[in-house]
């Protein structure tokens, strides 16, 4: 079980939230080429170690926030609202 610390709701089982994946800078839709846009959509770093990612507290406060999670151990630290 992964326990995710929601800034509002406190520690929650990951089943109560949705993992939105690693944080990737979003290109400006008005200037990005199709290739850049698709790279943003599909390509992932998928690291084995610490990753900055977004969670959605769907079963609680319904806010999005960012945490650092280690994908090898699922240890989580440093959450902040995003």
């Amino acid at each position: 079980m992964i326990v995710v610390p929601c800034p509002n709701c406190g520690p929650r089982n990951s089943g109560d939230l949705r993992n939105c994946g690693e944080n990737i800078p979003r290109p400006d839709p008005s200037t990005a080429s199709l290739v850049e846009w698709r790279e943003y959509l599909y390509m992932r770093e998928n690291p084995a170690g610490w990753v900055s990612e977004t969670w959605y507290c769907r079963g609680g406060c319904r806010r999005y926030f960012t945490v650092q999670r280690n994908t090898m151990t699922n240890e989580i630290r440093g959450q902040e609202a995003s």
Partner: protein
Amino acid sequence: MGKRPAKYSAAALIKHGLTRGDWPRMWRRPEMRDSYDVVIIGAGLHGLATAYYLAENHGITNIAVVDKGYVGGGGSGRNTAIVRSNYLTPEGVAFYDRSLSLYKTMANDLNLNVMFSERGHLTLAHTDSALRTMHWRAEVNKLQGIDSSVIDPQEVKKQAPSLDVSDNTRYPILGALHHPPGGIVRHDAVVWGYARGADHHGVHIIQETEVLDITVEGGSGPGGKGAGGKVTGVKTSRGDISAPVVVNCTAGWASLISNMAGVPLPITTHPLQAAVTEPCKVFLPTVVVSGSLHVYVSQTDRGELVFGASVDPVGTYRVNGTLEFTEELAGHVLELMPGISKMRLLRQWSGLCDMTPDYSPVMGFTPVEGYLVDVGWGTYGFKAGPVAGETLAETIATGRTADLISPFGIERFTHGDLVGEKGAAAVGH
């Protein structure tokens, strides 16, 4: 040396038993050389099948298959051994059907009993929309000559009498996609068969040797890697190997290996959990899949029920089992088969699945010359193993992407030409 490795027989057993010793190893433990024509990373089903078909079909035998663990220790030994070809897209159907036909003749081709059991495959529909997708798949399949049709609950009951097809369940069974050519195979035997066959042709299987880096020259990225570059070899924990062709046949670690060559992949890695019960008398004649209930089940020749589920929702490389999975699985299985409520689970395990956005693999050439990928096998890598090896071997030997895998190239993610298989691959196997 014959064309095929020797068959295991009662006569051989008696002979080796009487001579006390000289039991031949299935494959050697060769000394690693410092140069090969082809280096394949990952000694699982895909890597070994590729090596085998390179040697068998194309006469290329100066190959090293390098693995940081042991033969078949990853997804090849953790899957639920189901094979089928009733996919949703025409590209997928043609590809997986070739794999199924290779499985049918495999025991003879490899001279090893892989216990292929063609027992039929049922994909249950519990909702109108699921039933609609089943009809869609059945029609796509029929057009390509695949035996696949939609059957009603009474017929489902005939195929698998232990299923509860009444209206008194939370998700009543409305019908099913019936695929008679589907079945199960002894997955370890398949890996051993390819390893033995490849070794017989002189391929070096180098276990317990981790690839630390892929060396690339002339690329546009940092360190000369990335697009436009050319592969020169790999650095391993036992020294460097120079090779003009390096193939990434890993699962679970595909992104990390590919980043070594400067080729990013559209993959997130998720664990998939499976479980097996204690053995009991055989009562389940077919493979049963329920997408809505996130479960698939088959009964092995030993009588154990093998269960699989959908991938865990959070991407991670950690492969420990969870109680949530066991509880959910038990609830869903009992919904389908209330009669097995007293059976006990023997064990549960998990493996890593490399999920792509469209539930199709990523295969073939990459922007780095000489670096090929055979990755992104999500939850469908076992059933595709033989055809992946065959087509990748053809691609390497001829320098031209094999027709069957041309839809699965990495460039589809820059062209936006995805092969959406989620409707037939998300849970159902």
